C-alpha cells in the first residue's frame, strides 16, 4: 500500500470515528421519517463576548408541523434544555409568528409547517478556547393528524475568534426567521394596541384587540393567544378598521359560574400586519379590563327588554290581523293592497324588535321569546282554521293570550344587566390592504 493511500485510509477512519459533534455553523441533522432538526448559528466565527444568535432548525415532511408556544388544542411546543458551556449565559428560545391549522373535529393546532428556525438568543462573556461547545436536549412533537414525540441531544461547535464572520448560507436563514419574530407593540412608532373583554354576555365574553397604525397585509391577519388560566379561546375574527385592524376572539370560561375578574392578563401575537410598508407581527402582554355588570342600573333601563318584547308582541298581533289570521273586532279594514304592504312593515318591525332584543336578553331568552311569538302565530292560524266558534277555538285564543303574556315575562327573566349592553363596535372602513 502506497503512502497516499494509507493517509487517505487514516483520514477516512478518522472521519467515520469522529463523534456526532459537528464543527462549524450547522450541527448535524437528527432525522426521522417526519422531520429533521439541528442547531445552527449565522457565524463562521464569533467574538468571545456579546449577544449571539442561534437557531433550532426544523425541516418537516409535507403535511407535518411543529408547535408555537401555545400549541392549540393538542400537542405541545418543543422543550429545549441547553447544556452548560463556559461563558455562555442561559439561552432563550423565541417564537416566530405561527400559523393556524384546522384539524378534524374542529380542533386547532398553532405552529409551523415545512420549515422553521426557532431563534435562540444567548449572551457570551469571557468564553475561552477555540470553540464554544453548544448542546441542547430537545423534546418535540411532530404532528400531521397523528403525532409522534421525539427526543434528541443536538450539538454544535461554534468557532470563537476576535472578529465576527458571518456564514453566507446560514446567516440569511437565521435572519429570515429572526425577522418573523413579533415586535413588542410599544416599540413601533405610531402603533397602538388596546384590548378589552366585552362581557356584555357573561356566558360568552369576547376579547377585542384593536391595533392602530399597522394595517392588514397581503396575508389575512391572525391573532394568537397564549394559554390563559381561566379562558378557552375560539377562532379569532379580524377586520380592518381605520388605519388598523380589530380582532375579536370568543372566549369561554373553563369553569362555569366562576365570576369574571375585573381585569385579567392576556398575552398575544398579532400576525399578517404591515407597518410603514414592512410586514410585521406584534406581541403584547396586557392587563385587560373586563367590561362586565355595573352595580347600579336605572329603572328605565331595566324595563327596556320588557318594553321591546311588548312591541314585538304587538307587531305580531298587528301582522296577524293585517293578514287576516286574527280578528281584532275592528269592523273597518284598510283595502287589500294597503293591508299587504302594512303586513310586511309589521313583519319588519318584528325583526327589528328581535334585533334590539338580542342586545338586551340572553341567547336562551331570545330563543324562548322567538318560540313564543311563533306559537302565537300557530295559535292564531289554528283558530282561523276552526270555522265554527267552539270550545276548541276558545282554547286556541287562550293559548295565544298565554303566549303573549309569557313573552314579556321571559324577557324579564332573561334580561342582561342594563349596563352590559353590547359595546358598539367600530365602524369597519373597507379599505384595501396596504
Amino acid at each position, binding site marked *: 500500500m502506497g503512502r497516499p493511500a494509507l493517509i487517505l485510509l487514516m483520514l477516512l477512519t478518522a472521519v467515520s470515528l469522529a463523534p456526532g459533534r459537528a464543527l462549524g455553523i450547522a450541527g448535524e441533522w437528527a432525522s426521522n421519517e417526519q422531520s429533521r432538526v439541528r442547531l445552527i448559528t449565522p457565524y463562521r466565527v464569533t467574538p468571545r463576548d456579546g449577544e449571539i444568535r442561534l437557531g433550532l432548525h426544523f425541516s418537516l415532511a409535507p403535511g407535518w408541523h411543529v408547535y408555537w408556544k401555545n400549541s392549540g388544542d*393538542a400537542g405541545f411546543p418543543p*422543550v429545549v434544555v441547553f447544556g452548560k458551556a463556559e461563558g455562555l449565559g442561559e439561552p432563550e428560545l423565541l417564537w416566530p409568528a405561527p400559523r393556524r391549522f384546522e384539524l378534524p373535529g374542529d380542533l386547532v393546532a398553532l405552529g409551523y409547517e415545512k420549515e422553521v428556525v426557532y431563534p435562540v438568543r444567548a449572551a457570551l462573556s469571557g468564553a475561552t478556547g477555540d470553540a464554544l461547545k453548544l448542546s441542547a436536549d430537545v423534546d418535540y412533537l411532530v404532528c400531521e393528524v397523528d403525532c409522534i*414525540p421525539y427526543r434528541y441531544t443536538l450539538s454544535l461547535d461554534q468557532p470563537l475568534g476576535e472578529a465576527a464572520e458571518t456564514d453566507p448560507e446560514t446567516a440569511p436563514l437565521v435572519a429570515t426567521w429572526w425577522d418573523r419574530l413579533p415586535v413588542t407593540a410599544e416599540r413601533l412608532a405610531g402603533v397602538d394596541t388596546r384590548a378589552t373583554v366585552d362581557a356584555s354576555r357573561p356566558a360568552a365574553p369576547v376579547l377585542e384587540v384593536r391595533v392602530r397604525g399597522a394595517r392588514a397585509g397581503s396575508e389575512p391577519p391572525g391573532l394568537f393567544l397564549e394559554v390563559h388560566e381561566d379562558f378557552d379561546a375560539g377562532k379569532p375574527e379580524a377586520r380592518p378598521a381605520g388605519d388598523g385592524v380589530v380582532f375579536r376572539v370568543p372566549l369561554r370560561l373553563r*369553569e362555569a359560574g*366562576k365570576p369574571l375578574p375585573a381585569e385579567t392578563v392576556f398575552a398575544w401575537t398579532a400576525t399578517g400586519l404591515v407597518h410603514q410598508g414592512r410586514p410585521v407581527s406584534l406581541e403584547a402582554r396586557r392587563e385587560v379590563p373586563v367590561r362586565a355588570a355595573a352595580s347600579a342600573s336605572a329603572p328605565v333601563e331595566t324595563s327596556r327588554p320588557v318594553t321591546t318584547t311588548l312591541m314585538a308582541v304587538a307587531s305580531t298581533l298587528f301582522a296577524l290581523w293585517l293578514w*287576516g289570521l286574527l280578528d281584532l273586532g275592528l269592523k273597518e279594514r284598510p283595502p287589500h293592497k294597503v293591508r299587504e304592504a302594512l303586513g310586511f312593515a309589521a313583519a319588519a318591525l318584528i325583526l327589528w324588535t328581535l334585533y334590539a332584543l338580542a342586545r338586551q336578553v340572553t341567547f336562551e331568552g331570545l330563543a324562548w321569546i*322567538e318560540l313564543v311569538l311563533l306559537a302565537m*302565530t300557530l295559535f292564531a292560524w289554528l283558530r282561523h282554521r276552526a270555522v265554527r266558534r267552539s270550545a276548541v277555538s276558545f282554547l286556541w285564543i287562550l293559548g295565544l293570550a298565554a303566549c303573549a303574556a309569557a313573552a314579556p315575562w321571559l324577557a324579564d327573566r332573561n334580561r342582561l344587566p342594563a349596563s352590559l349592553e353590547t359595546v358598539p363596535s367600530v365602524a369597519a372602513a373597507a379599505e384595501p390592504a396596504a
Partner: protein
Amino acid sequence: MRSNRSIFTMLLLLAGLTLAALPALATGTVGETAPAFQLKGADGKTYSLADFKGKVVVLEWINPNCPFSDRHAREKTMTEVSKKYGKAVWLGINSTNPNDSGFLAPAEHLAYNQKTGIAYPVLYDETGKIGKAYGAKTTPHMFIIDEQGKIVYNGAIDDDPSGRKDKVARVNYVDGGLSSEMAGRKIDPASTKPYGCSVKY
C-alpha cells in the same frame, strides 16, 4: 287566503332560521352537568353514564395508536390511579373515527388492554358525538364527574407532556382531583390544558 298562508310559511321559515343560527351550548365545562351517554364497550356490553349515578366517574379519552396515550398505558399511569380509588368508576372512551388508520377493532383493543394491564372498560364513540359533547380534544383528555353528575375536573392527566420527569416527580391532576373529591374538598386545579395527540374525529 292562499297568499296569507305563504306569508305565514315565510314567517315560520324565518323564525326557524333564527333559531338554527343560535350558537351551540358550551360543553365539557367544569361546573356543568356531564352530558349523558350510552356507548358500547370493547367487551360488547353497553355502558350508560346514568348507570353510575351516585358514584364518582372518571372519563379518559384513549387511543392506543397515540404515543401519549400509549406511553401512559405502558407506564400504568391510569391503571394505578384507577386501582387507588376503587370507589370511583373509570371508563376509557375511544372516539377514533373508524375510517382513521389508527382505529382499533374491539378484539384488538381488548388484546391491547390485556397486554398493558388496562382493567377498566373502554367504550366506543365511533361517531365522535360524545367526544364533541364533552369537548374532548386530546388523547389522553381526562374528566372527573362527581356524585351529582357534574363535571368537576377537565384537563390533562399530569404536568409532564414530554414524559421526561420521573414518575414520582410528576403532578398527577386526576390523582389529586380524586383525592380532593373523595375528601369532599374542591378540586384545584379544576381545569388544566390537556396535552397529547388530537382526538381522531
